[in-house]
Structure formats: C-alpha cells, structure tokens
C-alpha cells in the first residue's frame, strides 16, 4: 500500500514521540550514572555527560551488599523459571492437546487465578510460611513467583501448542510413543519458542517482584535486588549517583536475556494472546 508523504511524517512523529517517552528516561539514568556528583545535581541537566567517573559503580560494589542482592535475585529468578516450566509445559499439553471432562472449567479457573489480587494472599501466606519455617528463605520467594507466573504461563503456551498439526502427534503415537515420550521428543522441540516466551516472562516477573520479598525476607544476606536496592535508597542520604549506578546495573541481566530471547517473548504475547 502506498503511503503519502504526510502519512509518513505523521508515522515518524508518533515513532519519535514513543522512542522519547520510553528511551529518554533510561538515557538520563545511564548517562547520569557516569557523571560527577556536581553535574548530576546541576541546575541545568546535561543531555550528554560533561564529566566521566566510575566512582558510583565502585562505591556500589564495594560499600553495599549490591552484588549479594544481584546473586540472590539470579538464584530466585532462575529457580522460579525452571519450576514454572516443569509445571506449565505438561499442563499446557493436556489443556491444549487433550480432551477431558472439566477441561473448560479448569481452564477458566486458571484464567481467573490471573485476576487474583495478590495482596489478598500476602497476609495468610505470611502466616502459613511462618508455621512451615519458610520465612526468610529464598524458597518462599520461588514458591510465590511460580504461583503468580503459572496461570499466565499456561495461557501463553496455548497458541504454540495449537499451531502444531495433529498428524505429527498421531504419527508419533502410532509408532508406539508413550504420551510422556511424545511430549518430550516431539512436542517440546516444536513449542520451543513458546517455552522461551514463558521462560522470559517468568524470569522477568520474578526479577522484578518486590512486595512479597519485602515482607518475607528478613535478613540482609537473602534479599533479592529490588528489596536490597530499596534499602540502599533509604539507608544513605540520597546519593543520586549511587542510585543511578544501581539502577543501571539492575537493567543488565534482563536486557541481556531479552537481547537473546526477547523476540520469542514478543511472539508469545502477540500471537498467543487475546483469545
């Protein structure tokens, strides 16, 4: 379809505004993290850094527990992702490739779980975990993250399972494949992009989770990054350079992850969603 010059200009204007809205805040944060303190709080904000220093990063890594927080977050997010996949893949396979009594009802119930106000279970879960001795453990965070990611994860797999022709599966069955073998050998490789999408989704929601971690984790050594970082915000007199460096570093793992598998995540959202 031909586009007129005016149409192209309008599109360009929208795209530039979008890019500004999304990227400019990050630009100021990243460049701010390498500016000298005096420049950060200067009266006239500088678009491009006039000074260069790594002192904020040095201080962050040596004077705070930031590296520990990052490690904790990596452990929790990775474990949450693995467990979510182990639960979501078989469930997705059953929901979208098999027929059984009560399938629709159970599927609806799962979607409803997505509408669940998380704060409601914060109070009782705190009590339950206290009784089980799970408070102040990374396992508690993993359990919570899986519970919140799982409904959406199953939902996301829908289109990926649905796109596989039924003949492939039947052929595998006729060759004598047991259901678990069919799932492992045939289905999982075919839905690999969906699995990547779910993995990214779970990793990111776990990486960013704050509320439950702030209530359930009591000792500094077990804090994940969001809770630890908010502690750093409160504990020093506001040191913007330090905070900007912390914010920049926290972006690193998810941005790297997204650079590799972000494409699949986007495909999972755009192709599977809204049905």
């Amino acid at each position: 379809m031909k586009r007129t010059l005016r149409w192209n200009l309008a599109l360009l204007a929208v795209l530039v505004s979008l890019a500004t809205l999304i990227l400019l805040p990050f630009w100021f944060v990243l460049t701010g993290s390498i500016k000298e303190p005096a420049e950060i709080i200067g009266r006239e904000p500088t678009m491009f850094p006039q000074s260069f220093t790594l002192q904020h990063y040095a201080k962050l890594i040596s004077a705070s527990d930031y590296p520990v927080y990052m490690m904790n977050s990596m452990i929790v997010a990775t474990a949450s992702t693995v467990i979510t996949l182990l639960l979501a893949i078989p469930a997705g396979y059953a929901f979208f490739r098999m027929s059984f009594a009560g399938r629709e009802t159970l599927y609806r119930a799962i979607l409803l779980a997505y509408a669940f106000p998380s704060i409601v279970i914060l109070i009782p879960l705190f009590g339950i975990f206290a009784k089980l001795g799970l408070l102040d453990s990374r396992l508690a965070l993993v359990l919570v993250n899986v519970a919140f990611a799982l409904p959406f994860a199953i939902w996301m797999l829908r289109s990926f399972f649905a796109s596989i022709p039924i003949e492939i599966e039947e052929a595998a069955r006729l060759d004598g494949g047991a259901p678990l073998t069919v799932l492992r050998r045939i289905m999982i490789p075919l839905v690999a992009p969906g699995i990547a999408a779910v993995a990214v989704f779970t990793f990111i929601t776990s990486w960013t989770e704050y509320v439950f971690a702030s209530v359930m984790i009591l000792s500094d050594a077990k804090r994940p990054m969001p809770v630890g970082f908010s502690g750093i915000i409160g504990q020093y007199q506001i040191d913007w350079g330090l905070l900007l460096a912390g914010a920049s570093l926290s972006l690193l793992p998810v941005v790297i992850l997204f650079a590799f598998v972000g494409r699949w995540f986007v495909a999972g959202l755009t192709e599977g969603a809204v049905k």
Partner: protein
Amino acid sequence: MKIPKHILPFAFIGPAMLFLAAMLLWPLAQAIILSLQSVRSVGTTGDWVGLSNYREVLIDPVFWGSAWLSLIWVLANAVLQTLLALVAALALNQSFPGVRIARTWIVLTWIVPTVVVVMIWRWLFSTSGGIVNPLLMLSGVTDAPVGFFANPTIAFATLVFINSWRWFPFITLMMLAGLTRIPRDLYEAASIDGAGPWKRFSRITWPLLAPTLGVLLVIGTLLSFNVFDIIWLLTAGGPADSTRTLPVLIYETAFKSYRMSEAAAVAVLATVFLMGFALLATRWLARPPEAR
C-alpha cells in the same frame, strides 16, 4: 507402568493445579477464616467474631474513600494505558525499517524492576536537581519546582502516568496481535475504492479491533487494581491519603497498624468485587458481537 487413558490428562495438569490450589486457594480460605476472627498480628490467635470485621469495615469512611480511589485509579490507568497502547500499536503495525527491533524493545519499561522504575521517576521528577523541573524552569513554564509527589491531585496523576508508562508497552504487544489478524486485503480494497487513512481506520480497524480492546481493558483493569509497589514506594499512600488505594490500605492495616483480621476483611471484599467484575466482563466479552 501404564497410566489409564482417561486419567492421563489429569496426571499432566495435576501438579500445576495442586500447586495453584496450595498457593492461591488455600491462602484465600485462610484469609476468609482470618477475616472472621480478631487477630492483630501474625502468629497470635484471636477469637471468632463472626462478621463484625466486615460490619466495621463497611461503615468505615476510610474504606469507602480508599475504594473510591481504587476505582478512579483503575479507570484512569485503563484509559491512559489503552490509549497509549492503541497509538503505539497502530504505529508498530506499519512497516518501516527497524520495525522488528521496535516491537521487541518497546517492552523495555516493563522488564525493569518496579523499584528501579520508582527510582528513575523519583529522580526525574525530583524537586532538587532532577530533570523535569529544571527543564520546566528553563523553558519558563514555572518559576519554582513543581512538587510532583507533594500535592494530592498532582501526586495521583503522576502515579497514574508512571504506572501507565510501565504497563502500556505490554498492552501494546497484545493489541498488535489483534491488529495483525486484520486481513491486509481489506485495506488494499478500501484504498482502491478511494478511502483515506481516517476512513480506513474508522470503517475497518476500529470495528475489527473493538473486541480486542474490550479484552485489554479488562486485563488492564485487573493489572492496575493490583498495583501496590509503585504507589507504596513513591508516596506510601500520601500525601493526605490521596493515593491510598485498596491494596495500600490492606498492607497498611495488616503490617503497619497490626490489624490482620480487618485487613483480611478488606482483602476478601476486594477479591469479591474484582472476581465479580472479571466474571461479568468475561461473560460479556464471550457473547457474540451482535448481542452486545
């Protein structure tokens, strides 16, 4: 070992369902029990008090004030997010160099931890230094720094903006799904018939996208209602309780004033409202288009 055929699906969904039941349904049942007792802090026991917590909550103007704020919060966010997402999705649905990269990286605001989102905007909107205030003052819009988190109305609006900033790209991607499903030939045919961009939008895009928009408004509503961390970390419900939505009230009641049972009652009421809304909305959306 051979599992009978009719049990097989349940063997596959079983672990996930049991996990969700243990982590969501069981605590929900506990919340209901808690709301019928008089427990003040975790670990202590309380007496059974029947529905008196609910009675107390329902006559409390603080609860209604908070419920009202939640309603405005949800509406404002749903509208702003959906509008921003609509514009973004329409633009990203065009073909231009770099469209794939743009479609992937638009979710940058969503993959960032909320704590970092909070820090970023607290700094950008700061009254000492920062970015926005110096720019406003340099361009002569104001003489003194604007207290973006100090005035009740401005603070509420600022939070709506920050929350929508974080979530609209996520909605954009789901909206793109609806857009890419509209057949290209429809637009081709319309252009040949001499329809301009506006006509193509109002006669083709809009009617075909409407069901998707409906679903996304519902999802946006549910997502926005649950937002707690952004509000808590930026304003903690203030100034003058102007941003104390229901999740903030629940958290405050439970973990700051140590009235667990009352907090549980508020939480159960909120769940009933939200679930009721979700059920009604999905039923409404499931109806055939003509019946709407």
